[in-house]
């Protein structure tokens, strides 16, 4: 018996389509990212397939889902670092990886070694011209140097890192490093910012502060933000849209439409309950980790009827 895990979830995502089609109010000018029936395979295993997604300009989108479902992989696909196994992906109207400096990227991490003797400004500067050959020549090209210095100071000011940007980055706290890295991703004025779990390993006050910063960048600088997140709560109030990834596909839409017991239970094919606490935080109960979905799939009654 061949099980087609994709079909069931694709069906689920189609059911949510009508809710999704009226695009959020803040995406008037074109699509920044689009995936059409996209699938990705990593070392022989299909992580997800049949993913349909459109992200409009200026939107703040969170990518959610259990561990190992391929959230970071989605970011790598958008960067053009990983190829898709099927379907079509466009980023800023181009093939992934072709948009260059128009895409800013903050990988999952990653803290710098405490002994690294480089200042925060040097790290930000790598985002400005680190991909150029040669060494910066002292004294020459004065105007270009000044423009670079001005932009770097400006973006460091924007993320509120001015007071520690001159310190060796290894000596900065996790939250401080994260702000400097966001500055690095922003320094070339990208139209799209891809953030991979930027709140991970930060304490709660820093999570809130960095979430607020990203929200502000999205609103005030008009940058489209796609953020992979483990916990939606710190960014919930700022989100235009969430994307839930599952083995077979994805569901996307406004947070209140997607993060519901019905939608998530349908997506993962297992009972999931979404509870709302008195202060508006969401708690997802019963969300399976990726391997659990895998075994559930075979056990689930009627799983085989998903043949197209």
């Amino acid at each position, binding site marked *: 018996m061949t099980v087609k895990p994709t079909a069931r979830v694709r069906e689920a995502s189609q059911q949510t389509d009508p809710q999704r089609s009226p695009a959020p109010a803040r995406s008037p000018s074109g699509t920044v990212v689009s995936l059409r029936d996209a699938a990705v395979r990593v070392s022989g295993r299909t992580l997800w397939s049949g993913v349909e997604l459109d992200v409009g300009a200026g939107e703040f989108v969170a990518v959610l889902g259990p561990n190992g479902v391929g959230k970071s992989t989605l970011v790598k696909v958008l*960067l053009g*670092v990983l190829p898709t196994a099927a379907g079509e992906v466009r980023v800023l109207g181009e093939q992934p*990886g072709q948009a*260059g*400096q128009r*895409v800013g*990227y*903050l*990988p999952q*991490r*990653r803290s*710098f070694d405490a002994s*690294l*003797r*480089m*200042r925060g400004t*040097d*790290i930000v500067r*790598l*985002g400005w*011209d*680190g*991909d*150029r*050959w*040669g*060494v*910066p020549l*002292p004294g020459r090209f004065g105007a270009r140097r000044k423009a670079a210095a001005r932009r770097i100071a400006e973006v460091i000011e924007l993320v509120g890192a001015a007071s520690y940007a001159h310190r*060796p980055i290894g000596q900065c706290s996790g939250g401080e490093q994260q702000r400097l890295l966001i500055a*690095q*991703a922003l320094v070339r004025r990208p139209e799209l910012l891809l953030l991979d779990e930027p709140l991970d390993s930060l304490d709660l006050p820093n999570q809130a502060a960095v979430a607020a910063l990203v929200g502000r960048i999205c609103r005030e600088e008009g940058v489209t933000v796609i953020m992979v997140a483990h916990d939606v709560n710190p960014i919930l109030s700022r989100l235009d849209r969430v994307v839930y990834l599952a083995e077979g596909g994805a569901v996307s839409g406004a947070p209140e439409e997607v993060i519901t017991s019905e939608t998530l239970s349908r997506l993962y094919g297992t009972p999931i309950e979404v509870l709302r606490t008195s202060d508006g935080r969401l708690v997802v109960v019963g969300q399976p980790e990726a391997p659990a979905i895998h075994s559930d799939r075979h056990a689930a009654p009627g799983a085989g009827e998903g043949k197209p």
Partner: protein
Amino acid sequence: MTILAASGWTAALGHPFFQHALLAGTAIAAAAGLTGYFLVLRAQVFTGDALSHVAFTGALAALALGYDLRIGLFAATILIALLLGTLGKRGRADDVAIGSVFSWILGVGVFFLTLYTTKRSAGNGGAGVNVLFGSIFGMSAAQALTAALVAAGICVAVLTIARPLLFASVDEAVAAARGVPVRLLGFAFLTLVGACAAEATQAVGALLLLGLLAAPAGAAQRLTDRPFRALALSAGLAVAAMWVGLGLSYAVPSMPPSFGIIAAATTAYAATFLPGIRRRTATTVAGLTA
């Protein structure tokens, strides 16, 4: 004192052997300082150590088989550097790969040493010692010129890839996403380290070349937290160590030049641990480059 030192230098510069040593030594030290900065930054000093063993084996293999020692040096170090890159991930040699390869290589070197001393060494009995400890005062004009040109080539190459290599070393994922050829740069850098090890073997010998690669770079990284300043400082300290070492060795004939050079480099590194020196030097450096 200054006059004495000055007259000493004038006397030294009158000798062709010293001129050759100064020419080759300066260029080799600059190349080692530039390459060493990235070796330290990328935590690949162990790779440099492994390549020094390879340099020994390559040189003796060439001698045993009757070729120019330098052909063996460059062929072995560059080839093994690239091999180490393929064994490791993403163009970086990992410790286990190096550890497995380099003692075996040293064993092969001992084999060639025996082969050479029993078969061919009639006219050049000290060759093994020269490979191990360097023979910078024994360079001919042609050898010195070749060494200086190759070292200058290494310097130009390191400076050309310096900025993307810095990006790839510090922030590999972001650099790759921005289109920096991370893996290719890793291999290019290992090739340069290999060539630099071959060069430094001629100056300070296979056993001591690690000091010339690591000590000035380590000192520079302790003295400044600005990457390109540290890169320049590393090259400057290596060249200074070379000059001090050559001068000392000329003034004290019983002192071998490689000892003088490495002693000067190590002293510079050790001095950065003295309280007060770090801040003062950082200010001076800032004043010089501002």
